[in-house]
């Protein structure tokens, strides 16, 4: 079965499913990669592997498979065969992304060194430069390094403005995440709308649109503009409901805060449950622990048992280089009245 399919056709068709049935996309890309390599078309194999990695990292969030493949691909890319190939650069960034998704704090030094190296090697004539800016912004926000993140996001925003809608849309999401972190609600508002406009109906960026509506809803609620907030919330939810792939972490954070702002703990709990489902068993121990802790907090808040979450967080911490990054907040949480 499938022998009659050309690998390039299989690969191009796989994009049709990327946001509706990503598992099918992953399967098709795996198969296209294997067939390309079997046919001796190694460059195409690397090209497909990069997109497979992008799908595993950004769409399905399956980091177990992504890590193996990212290492394998980065190692493969050292060969002379790929010297002129753009994806040779991309797969190194994919490897950094994979490490960011698995244990960003435990691997902070490895990630920082690799990013610095890539930034030195990459200039703004290729897209990878913008991907790197996005990675760095993400990395710094994860650490709560708002000053560094502000600097990076400013660059990302201003440099992508005239580059492309994809990155410019993402820059708006990063910017709004940062402003939420700083509680800068009034200034966030125009960026939410601008980001939505920039992103438009691009099917690849509907996660951004959902997130930006969520950010807008939260900001409006913080500013007591309740009617507008509810409309924005509905838009965010409608977009998210249409998506059949895991949605960004920031979306959940914004939506949960939106509910918690008026004491809707149950609604926030449901969202966190969805978020957890998206990461469980997918090789993201740090993020799974973080989400479980957020979930446990809500359970505690409404007097429901949360011991299972605590036990799971302890188990997850064993997979981290620095278990204390989740164990310390866990202890603090347990000590809270």
């Amino acid at each position, binding site marked *: *079965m*499938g022998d*009659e*399919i050309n690998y390039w*056709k*299989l690969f191009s*068709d796989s994009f*049709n*499913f990327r946001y*509706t*049935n990503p*598992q*099918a996309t*992953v*399967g*098709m890309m*795996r*198969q296209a990669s*294997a067939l390309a390599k*079997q046919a001796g078309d190694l460059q195409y194999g690397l090209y497909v592997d990069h997109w497979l990695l992008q799908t595993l990292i950004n769409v399905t969030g399956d980091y177990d498979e992504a*890590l*193996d493949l990212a*290492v*394998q691909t*980065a*190692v*493969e890319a*050292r060969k002379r065969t790929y010297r002129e190939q753009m994806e040779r650069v991309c797969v*190194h960034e994919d*490897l950094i992304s994979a*490490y960011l998704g698995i244990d960003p704090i435990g*691997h902070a030094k*490895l990630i920082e*060194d*690799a990013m*610095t*190296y890539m930034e030195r090697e990459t200039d703004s004539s290729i897209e990878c430069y913008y991907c790197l800016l996005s990675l760095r912004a993400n990395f710094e926000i994860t650490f709560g390094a708002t000053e560094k993140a502000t600097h990076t996001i400013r660059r990302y925003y201003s440099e992508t403005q005239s580059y492309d809608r994809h990155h410019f849309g993402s820059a708006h999401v990063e910017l709004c995440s940062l402003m939420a972190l700083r509680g800068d609600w009034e200034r966030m508002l125009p960026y939410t709308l601008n980001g939505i406009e920039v992103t438009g*109906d691009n*099917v690849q960026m*509907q996660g951004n649109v959902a997130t930006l509506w969520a950010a807008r809803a939260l900001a409006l609620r913080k500013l007591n503009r309740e009617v507008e907030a509810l409309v924005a919330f*509905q*838009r965010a939810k*409608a*977009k998210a*409901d*249409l998506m*059949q792939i895991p949605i960004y972490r920031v979306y959940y954070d914004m939506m949960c805060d939106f509910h918690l702002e008026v004491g809707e703990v149950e609604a926030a709990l449901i969202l966190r449950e969805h978020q957890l489902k998206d990461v469980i068993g997918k090789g993201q121990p740090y993020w799974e622990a973080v989400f479980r802790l957020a979930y446990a907090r809500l359970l505690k808040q409404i007097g429901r048992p949360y011991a299972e979450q605590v036990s799971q967080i302890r188990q997850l911490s064993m997979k981290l280089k620095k278990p204390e990054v989740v164990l310390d907040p866990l202890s603090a949480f347990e000590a809270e009245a």
Partner: protein
Amino acid sequence: MDTQRRQFQLNVPGLLKVLAENLYSNRKVAIRELIQNAHDSIMRRVIANGTDISFGPRIQLRADPANSILTIMDNGDGMDDNDIIQYLTTIGNSYTREVGSTLEFLHPERASALIGQFGMGFLSAFLIASEVKLYTRKAGGQGWSWYCDASEFYEMKPAEVASVGTFIELKLKPEAEPLLNADELTQAVRRYADFLSVPIYVNTRVQPVNLMTPPWESDTPDKAVKEYLERTFNQREVLHTVILRDQIIDLGHDTLTVPLRGVMFIPPSSVVSLREYGDVMVYIRRMFITDQERDLLPSWARFFRGVIDCAMLQPTASRESLHQEESFMAVRQALEAQLLAELRRVAYEQPQVWRRIVVSHTDLVLGWVTVNDEFFDQVADLLPIQTSRGAMLLKDYLAQTGNVFYYVTQQIGSLQDQLLGEGFEVPVIDASWFAVKPFLEKYASRLPAQSRLVQMDGDAKKLMQPVDDSRYDGLVMFFRKHGIVAKIASYKPHGVPGLMLYPRNADAMIEARRALESDELSDPFAEIVSDYLSQQGDDDDSQPTGVLYLNASCVLVRQLTEPAAAPMRDSVLTLIHQIAKLFAGRTLTAQDAATAFSGVTQSIIEVMNHG
């Protein structure tokens, strides 16, 4: 300084340029916009006349290639000077929208005949024309002429206009002149206005070029749909058609009736088995919007194609795509409910048709079947799966294997895994096709009886029984002395003395080690790769060099434990190891293969010398 309140200044030519060149993706949409204006004008006259159509509604397009002129004439309600100023030349004011909103509550059926919303369609004339002249007259009123050459000024004056309605004359730009070709013009009319109820005539043709009545509203819908699918989709024989109807969806606190019109169909299998469809042609109030809407169908229904007309859908300003908002989701939900109900009906009432659908689209159905439980239940036992013994249905397969799914995910390098499967006398499922494994997992999860999935490549150990017998210690020691990890197990086929098993990522690990040893990676990435390798398990089975599993069920292996075999034992063990390596075919460089062959040759010579 006092605050000054000023009005925005409009640079009309600039605005026209932006709207005309950036709002629309295709300049032919000008035909759609002008026809739609003509249609709405006629509908307003019909409504004003209390639905009397004795005036013979019609739209006439004429091309004059010699002078590069295209004219569009309608006998709608026409315009007076106020209408021209308020609506035609005020961007964003839509006469039709205003009429529509007043009718919407009391006469929704009349409102639904009106299409215009944005008050900017007329601008699109400048997509194709450098000059536009317009003559118009309302019943019992003064006629007017209007002229604009795409500058910020227009001219209008009273004029003799023979009949009620509007006549537009477009001086086409050179790049739009192909529209003066009758076939091109007819094609554009059919594309955008096939279903408009007003007859549209092109040049001297005596028959309207548009269908006017959508096939699903015809008196003989089956025949009309068949003809339509052939004409529009080039589909002579389809497997099944579904004529859409109103669908009630449950909103929890209320219900909502979604007015679905149109037809969905399942094409026969395509030349390329992977070919997916799922694209829907969308009309709103009979006006064409897009033929490539890919999000409206539920994701599992990619083997459908079709055309839908739904007034609940909201077009974007260019009306070339849809806003994906709440109403879009409601329509999608309604469509899903209706297609599922129809498929359920076909499965029970027309099993032969159902079988053809599933068999024709096996690959596609497999790809989507896992995302919808109801759909899964309808097709799971009809899908043939490829196995090492030919195509089989899973229920028959499981009857043979005792509810165990044995499968391989790679065609290359899985021969030895399949060999183990043959030892168990069971067929092995070829799950190298992307959709098969998720399908097997879903099938297993929904079986009432307990079942097991055994991936033969990378997980073949599950087919072996560990053997704890000190008689074999000498054999294992021999290999350990040579740095080879060997274990004793019992497995079928009994004729196989030894197999090499490797972890899933063995090749990648070996390559990574080589790259590190030869210092071929840049420093930060070398550190990451080292970190990765250090996190791999340190047990024997995680080693990329693989484990030789000697088969305690094989007579040869058992004989090697006998004292009589001692003189030839080392040679035979080397032979078994090298053959197993070559047969596995993994992690081998050309140099490794040469060494293995050399070992085989040397061992055979030694055995012969002893013989």
